[in-house]
Structure formats: structure tokens, C-alpha cells
């Protein structure tokens, strides 16, 4: 095995091992636990960057070589022997059975193959490397897309790990209360937190390096579990307000919502395997494999589109897209580092990463029927705009960020809907950096506010409420500057920040799509432009409400800067939140030629360049990987919406900062009714409560429990029980009469008899003697009678 392959295998091992060791051995020792967690993710970071930079180095050395062979590192082991339908040594579908691959025939073929494998099973205990078709292979693969993820994920997670130590007040007086936040005191479940976070990081890295859908799904589901455990980390916390979901309920909500998506995704994986005969990405997404798969499904390319939609459903749940977006805002109930890891580095990125990973399949779907493109683009664009409007009317500092996450994920999904693969990947990376930064900043703000709350002994005010903040600029300077950088990146502040470049690329792609005659492009362009405008606006609003003006509550009055565990990651992430964009400046920016080089575009584009070229020739996909011409409309649009939004926010909130007790000017502008509508998140939760939860509860309580369980099943069981009990009663009576009383009667008679007979045994010697004499007399008499012949007639 090559060194790079080995290193790639080892990437997820560090955090996973840290999880196991912390959980099993060092849970009592908090210092050791967090150092282990740091070590685990740091090893992963080093290994990831070695692999990542190697691949990038290959690209710099020879871009064409990378394009021709995008999978730079690939290693797999024969994992599970399977009854493979096609039994092809290369494991690629239909290579052997290509011309007979129709549904019915595949079944016959499968039966035939089964017999063949049956013979083999006897001796083939050792994986036969030459016959990969009969083995499900698990492995890791690194292509340019993986490489950029490997660059981002472990770094962001490592920053969050550093931050978490400060966030949980390491070194302070130990907190006493399990399952609730111990403000200003050390988290009692410190080790458990780091164990779960390590598992989370390990799962994300597993997902990133996976070379097949199944291993990806494994990481995906482990993250699902970790998000559940970490959102519900403060499991004992309850709120007075019934409208606010407690962390444990939020955890269940997140888990259940994503579960709905995951079931559909799992079906999609099964469909995928059935159609392609492999789950390996590079094996499945070859032009030949696509051609065979199109023949194999009942609906041709549309069938593949349906498969893409099933997998897309998984991403909708994981990346919190409408209509399954409802779990993500409530996931804010977890500790802030958890929010950061869920919303930036892992979890939600995983959904978009899946879409990027299966992008060839989605591209085929886009070409097969316009409906697929519309569906993806509509879900993404609608989610982006909807959550942007919701974010405008939120007061919770994390709530705004939560909706902005959903909104930005909507950007990525919409980009995929118009086929803008690279733009989506680019936005995924830049967004991960600045959103991790923003979450950590908001955690720092909350931490400072909680400190203020401790100081003034106020346990009722919500330290996350932006109306109570204000004036934190001077009290928390590092946090302010980091927040400002992150916020500007999110707003898409022109030229400097990463967010500008990635959003601009999405706009450009959507616009180009429109110019080519596709109305989807225009729809996405307009929706995303509006969203971007709102994004810039609410980000400025958030910055102004939090940091500008004078403190609006004693909490903010006594807030102070967080410790260096927390501020160091902020500084480091700020650098990336700005600089990450500079690798994606378009080649022909402002019509120049040769000044800029879009490293990101060409590097990630190399992943699919060759195969897309062939697929495009075969008319299976709408576009090749291409470089967009310079267009002035999207550039102006992105400048206008970003600067316009920031300016509007500045006018409304920063020029004249809110005073204490002053209502949000937004309410006046939007009218209270609309503001309430937005503040209450379009009432999606209430709608789902009425449409899905209540009927489900009704169904489970009345129909499932009362009617089916209690009445039908219990009724049958009780009937059986009563019948058997009745029969048992008769058996019992019979048994009592015959076996009990009957046997007792016999016993009693014997007892009576023996009582009679025992009087012989009187112990009196003379009675014995008398008896002997009598018997002797009788015998004598008998013998005499016999001798006399008198008894002859009787005896004979």
C-alpha cells in the first residue's frame, strides 16, 4: 500500500480512537480527555492536509494528469462477500452482462450466478482480490473534491475543539449540575462532550474519504446519532415558555426529521446498487456504466433521475432544506460549539457534499427531464429566500445564524439545481469557514452575556437575546472584529471576503444558465439575489444590534471578552474566512486575461472534467465542465445586493443604535402582522404540528394504541387467555378429582387397613405365644386331616 493510501485510511482513525479512549478510559480525567480529543483531531488534520496538499501539488504540477485520473488516492479492501448479480471481475456493472441487462433477465442471471457463487463459498474464505465482483469493497478515495473537503473539515473541527475547552470553562470551579449549563463553572460532562465531538469529527472524515455510498452512509448516520446526543447535551434543561423547545425534544426532533430523509436515501442507495451493481463512485460514474444503467432501469435516464431525487432527499434532510428544514433552528439548543460543528464543518455540509459526490448522477437527471432541475433549484432557492426572511425577524443571536445557515445551504442546493457544481463546492468551503467563525463568535458573545448574567444574578433574561445586547464592541474587541469579518463574508462584502467570490460564482452560473435559455436560471438568480440582499441586511442588523451603541441591559453592561481558548480559533478562522475566497477569483474577472487564476474552479473541476466530456458527447448531461465568460450582470447584482443590504442595515440599526427598551424598527416597517409571521418562522412548526405531529399522535394514541393494540391485539390475547384459563379450570377439576382425591382415597384405605393390622403387633409375648399355638394347632389339624385323606377331594 502506498504511503498516501495508508495516510488516507488513517485520517478518520484519530478522532474515532480518541472517542473510544475517552469514553472507556479517561472519562474521569478532564485534562487528559480534551488533550486526547485535540490529539485525535490534530493527527487527522495533519494527515488530511498532507493528503490534500499532495493532490493539490499534483494538480499544480500537471493539471491534465489530474483531470485524466482524478482519483489520486484509492485503496479498498474486500469487505463483504455478496451474491453479485453480474459477477464481473472489475466490479463495474454490466460489463459482462451488458447486453442482457433488463429487469427480468437480470433476475434469471442472478439465480444462475447464485449457484455459481454457492460452489465458491465453500473454499473462498480468503478474499479473492481478482474477483472483486463477488466482494463488496470498502475503501477510501481522494479526488480534488475530497481534497478540498479534507482541507476544510479537520481544520474547522480542530478550531471548534480548541474553542470548546474555553467555552466549557475548563479550569474553573467544577459545576455541580448535570445536564444543564453551569454558567461560569466547568462543565461536569466535559469528557463526554469531547468524546462525542471526536466521534462526530471522525464520522465526518469517514464520510469525506469514503469511496462508496455505503461507507458514506455509515459516517452520515453516526453523525445523525452524534447530533442527537449533542443537541440534547443539556438534557435536563427546561424552559418556562412552552413555545421554546427543550434540548431533549430538539434532539428528538432533529433525529426524527433527518431520519425521514435518511430512509428515502437508503432506498436510493439500494436502487443505486441495483442499477449500477456497485456503490463505488468512480466505478459507477463512468460513461459506460451510465449507458448500461440507463438501459437497466425501467424508465431509462428518468429512472436515474428518480434515483438522484431519492439521494437528494437525504441531503434535503441533512442540509436542512425545505420542507425538512425545521430541525435545524431547534438544533441551536445544543452548546454553541455543537452548533458550529453541525452548521459549518460537518452535518449540514455532509448533505451538500453528498450532492457534489453524486453530481454526475444529478447532471444526468438534469438532462433527462427539466422537472428534476426545477425541483432541486426550487427547493434550494425557496429555502434560501424563506429562511433569509425569517432571519430578518429573529432576536436570538444564534437563531439568526441558524436561518442564515439554512439560507446559505439553499444557495448551494440551488446552484446544484442549475448544474453549478463547482460554485456549490466553493460556497460549501467558504461558508464552512465563515459560518464556523460566526457561530464561535456568537458563542463567545453568549458566553460574555452569561458572565454578565452571573455578575448581576439575573437568571431570567435570555443571554442570547440581541435586544439585551448592544455596545459589546468595546467590551469584546476580538470577538467584535472576528464577528465583523465573518459577518461581512456572509454578506458577501465585495472583493475582500470569501463569501463574495463564492456567491458571485453561483450568480454567474445561474445567469449563464438563463442566457442559455433556461428559465430555471433566471428563477434561481432572482431568488438568490433577493436572499443575498436580505442576508447582507440581517447580518448587518445582527452586528449592529450586538455590538453597536450602548449596552441595553445589565447583562451586556457586565459582559467581558472570552478567554484565549475561545479567541484564538476566532482569529485563525477569520484568516480563512477572508482568504479562502482568493483561491476562487474567476480567471477572466473584469474581463482581464491571465492576471487571475481560478485555482478552486480548475482544481475541483478536474474531478469530473474527463468523464463529463464523454458524457456530454453522449448527450447524457447538459454541460461540460467549462469556464464561464465574464458577465457584468451577475457581478453588478452581487455588488448591489451585498452593499445595498449592508447599507440598509447600517441605516436602520447602526447609524442610530437601538436604545434600551426601544422596539425593533423592523416591526414598524413590516407591520406587526408580517413581523410576527416572520418571527414565528412562517409558522412552519405550527403547521407541521397540525398536519403531521397531531395526526401522528392521534393515530398512535387512538388508532394504534386504543383500537389496534388495546382492543384488537389485547382482545385476541385476552380471548386466548380466557379460553385457556377455562380449559385449565376443567383440567384442574378433573385432576383434583382423579389424581388428588382418588389417590388420597386409596392411600386412606391402606392407612385404615394398616391401622387394623397393626394391633397384631401388640408387643405382648403371651399373645404371640397364643397365636403360635393356635397356628401350630391349625397346621397340625390340617396335616392330620390330609394324612387321613379327608381333604383329598378338595385339594385335588
Amino acid at each position, binding site marked *: 500500500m502506498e504511503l498516501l493510501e495508508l495516510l488516507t485510511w488513517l485520517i478518520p482513525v484519530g478522532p474515532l480512537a480518541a472517542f473510544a479512549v475517552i469514553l472507556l478510559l479517561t472519562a474521569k480525567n478532564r485534562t487528559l480527555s480534551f488533550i486526547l480529543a485535540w490529539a485525535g483531531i490534530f493527527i487527522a488534520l495533519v494527515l488530511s492536509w498532507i493528503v490534500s496538499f499532495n493532490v493539490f501539488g499534483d494538480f499544480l504540477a500537471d493539471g491534465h494528469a489530474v483531470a485524466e485520473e482524478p482519483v489520486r488516492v484509492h485503496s479498498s479492501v474486500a469487505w463483504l462477500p455478496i451474491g453479485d448479480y453480474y459477477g464481473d471481475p472489475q466490479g463495474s456493472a454490466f460489463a459482462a452482462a451488458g447486453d442482457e441487462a433488463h429487469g427480468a433477465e437480470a433476475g434469471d442471471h442472478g439465480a444462475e450466478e447464485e449457484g455459481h457463487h454457492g460452489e465458491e463459498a465453500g473454499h473462498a474464505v480468503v478474499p479473492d482480490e481478482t474477483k472483486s465482483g463477488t466482494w463488496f469493497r470498502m475503501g477510501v478515495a481522494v479526488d480534488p473534491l475530497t481534497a478540498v473537503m479534507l482541507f476544510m473539515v479537520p481544520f474547522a473541527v480542530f478550531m471548534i475543539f480548541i474553542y470548546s475547552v474555553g467555552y466549557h470553562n475548563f479550569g474553573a470551579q467544577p459545576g455541580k449540575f448535570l445536564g444543564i449549563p453551569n454558567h461560569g463553572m466547568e462543565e461536569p460532562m466535559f469528557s463526554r462532550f469531547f468524546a462525542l465531538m471526536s466521534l462526530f469529527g471522525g464520522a465526518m472524515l469517514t464520510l469525506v474519504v469514503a469511496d462508496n455510498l455505503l461507507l458514506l452512509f455509515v459516517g452520515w448516520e453516526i453523525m445523525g446519532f452524534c447530533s442527537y446526543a449533542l443537541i440534547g447535551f443539556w438534557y435536563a434543561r427546561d424552559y418556562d415558555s412552552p413555545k421554546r423547545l427543550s434540548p431533549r425534544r430538539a434532539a428528538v426532533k432533529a433525529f426524527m426529521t433527518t431520519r425521514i430523509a435518511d430512509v428515502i436515501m437508503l432506498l436510493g442507495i439500494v436502487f443505486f446498487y441495483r442499477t449500477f451493481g456497485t456503490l463505488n463512485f468512480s466505478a459507477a460514474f463512468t460513461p459506460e456504466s451510465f449507458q448500461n444503467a440507463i438501459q437497466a432501469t425501467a424508465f431509462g435516464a428518468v429512472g436515474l433521475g428518480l434515483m438522484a431525487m431519492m439521494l437528494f432527499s437525504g441531503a434535503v434532510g441533512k442540509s436542512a432544506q425545505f420542507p425538512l428544514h425545521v430541525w435545524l433552528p431547534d438544533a441551536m439548543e445544543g452548546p454553541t460549539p455543537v452548533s458550529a460543528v453541525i452548521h459549518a464543518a460537518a452535518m449540514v455540509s455532509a448533505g451538500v457534499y453528498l450532492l457534489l459526490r453524486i453530481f454526475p448522477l444529478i447532471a444526468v437527471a438534469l438532462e433527462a427531464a427539466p422537472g428534476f432541475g426545477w425541483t432541486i433549484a426550487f427547493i434550494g432557492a425557496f429555502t434560501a429566500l424563506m429562511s433569509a426572511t425569517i432571519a430578518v425577524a429573529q432576536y436570538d443571536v444564534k437563531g439568526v445564524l441558524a436561518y442564515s445557515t439554512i439560507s446559505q445551504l439553499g444557495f448551494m442546493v440551488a446552484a446544484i439545481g442549475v448544474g453549478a457544481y463547482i460554485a456549490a463546492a466553493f460556497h460549501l468551503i467558504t461558508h464552512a469557514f465563515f459560518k464556523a467563525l460566526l457561530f464561535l463568535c456568537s458563542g463567545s458573545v453568549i458566553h460574555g452575556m452569561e458572565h454578565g448574567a452571573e455578575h448581576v444574578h439575573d437568571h431570567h433574561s435570555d443571554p442570547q437575546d440581541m435586544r439585551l445586547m448592544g455596545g459589546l464592541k468595546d467590551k469584546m474587541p476580538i470577538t467584535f472584529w472576528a464577528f465583523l469579518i465573518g459577518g461581512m463574508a456572509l454578506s458577501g462584502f465585495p472583493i475582500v471576503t470569501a463569501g463574495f467570490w463564492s456567491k458571485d460564482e453561483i450568480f454567474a452560473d445561474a445567469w449563464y444558465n438563463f442566457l442559455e435559455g433556461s428559465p430555471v436560471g433566471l428563477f434561481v438568480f432572482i431568488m438568490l439575489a433577493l436572499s443575498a440582499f436580505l442576508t447582507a441586511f440581517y447580518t448587518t442588523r445582527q452586528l449592529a444590534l450586538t455590538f453597536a451603541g450602548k449596552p441595553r441591559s445589565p447583562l451586556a453592561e457586565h459582559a467581558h471578552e472570552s478567554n484565549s481558548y475561545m479567541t484564538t480559533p476566532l482569529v485563525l478562522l477569520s484568516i480563512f474566512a477572508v482568504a479562502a475566497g482568493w483561491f476562487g477569483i474567476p480567471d477572466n474577472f473584469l474581463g482581464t486575461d491571465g492576471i487571475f487564476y481560478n485555482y478552486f474552479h480548475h482544481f475541483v473541476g478536474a474531478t469530473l472534467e474527463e468523464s463529463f466530456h464523454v458524457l456530454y458527447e453522449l448527450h447524457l448531461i447538459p454541460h461540460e465542465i467549462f469556464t464561464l465568460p465574464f458577465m457584468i450582470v451577475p457581478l453588478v447584482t452581487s455588488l448591489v445586493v451585498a452593499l445595498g443590504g449592508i447599507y440598509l442595515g447600517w441605516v436602520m440599526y447602526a447609524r442610530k443604535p437601538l436604545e434600551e427598551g426601544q422596539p425593533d424598527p423592523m416591526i414598524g416597517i413590516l407591520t406587526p402582522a408580517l413581523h410576527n409571521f416572520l418571527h414565528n418562522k412562517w409558522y412552519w412548526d405550527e403547521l407541521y404540528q397540525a398536519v403531521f405531529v397531531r395526526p401522528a399522535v392521534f393515530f398512535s394514541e387512538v388508532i394504534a394504541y386504543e383500537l389496534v393494540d388495546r382492543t384488537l391485539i389485547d382482545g385476541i390475547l385476552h380471548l386466548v387467555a380466557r379460553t385457556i384459563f377455562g380449559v385449565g379450570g376443567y383440567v384442574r377439576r378433573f385432576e383434583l378429582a382423579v389424581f388428588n382425591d382418588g389417590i388420597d382415597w386409596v392411600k386412606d384405605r391402606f392407612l385404615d387397613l394398616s391401622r387394623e393390622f397393626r394391633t397384631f403387633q*401388640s*408387643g*405382648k409375648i*403371651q399373645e404371640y*405365644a397364643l397365636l403360635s*399355638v393356635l397356628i401350630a394347632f391349625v397346621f397340625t389339624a390340617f396335616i392330620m386331616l390330609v394324612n387321613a385323606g379327608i381333604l383329598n377331594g378338595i385339594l385335588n
Partner: protein
Amino acid sequence: MIPLSWYLLVAAALFCIGLYGILARRNAVAMLMAVELALNAVNINLVAFWRYGNPSQPVGVAWAIFVLTVAAAEAAVGLALIISIYRQRDSVIAEELDILKY
């Protein structure tokens, strides 16, 4: 010469007296004496049959002497037992010695 049957009648009478004594007497010593009577009745029979049978061979006399010896031994053992019982229970009434009953 007195006929044999007379002796036999005497012996039978004596045996019956002994048997009656064994069965009817309450005192164990008296029962032992009655046993002696019954044994002696047997001796009379033995001697009488010898005298009227084949007097040249002294078989019957010898046997009678054996019986006497056995009777003596029996009386010795029996009396010893009775004394032992008496020491234990202050009684030689046979009816009362019934600890071997059911």
C-alpha cells in the same frame, strides 16, 4: 405293666398345664416355670417311648438328658433376663413388657 398311653396321657396333661401356665400366667417367673413343665412333659414322652420302643439303645434317655441341659440353660438365661428387666422396670409382669409393639 402300665400301658404306654397312660404315660402319654400324663405327659399330655403336664404339657397342657405348662402351656396354660405360659399363656395364662402374668408373672414372667411363673411363665418360665410353666415352660419347664412343658419341657418335662416332653421328657416323659421321650423316656416312655424309649422304654416301650427299643430299650436296648439308650437314645431316648440321652435325648431327655439333652433336654434337661437345655432347660437348665434356658432357665439360667431366662432368669437373668427377668432379673435385668426387673431392675429396669420394677416389674416382671409380661403384659407390661410391650415396648416392641407397633
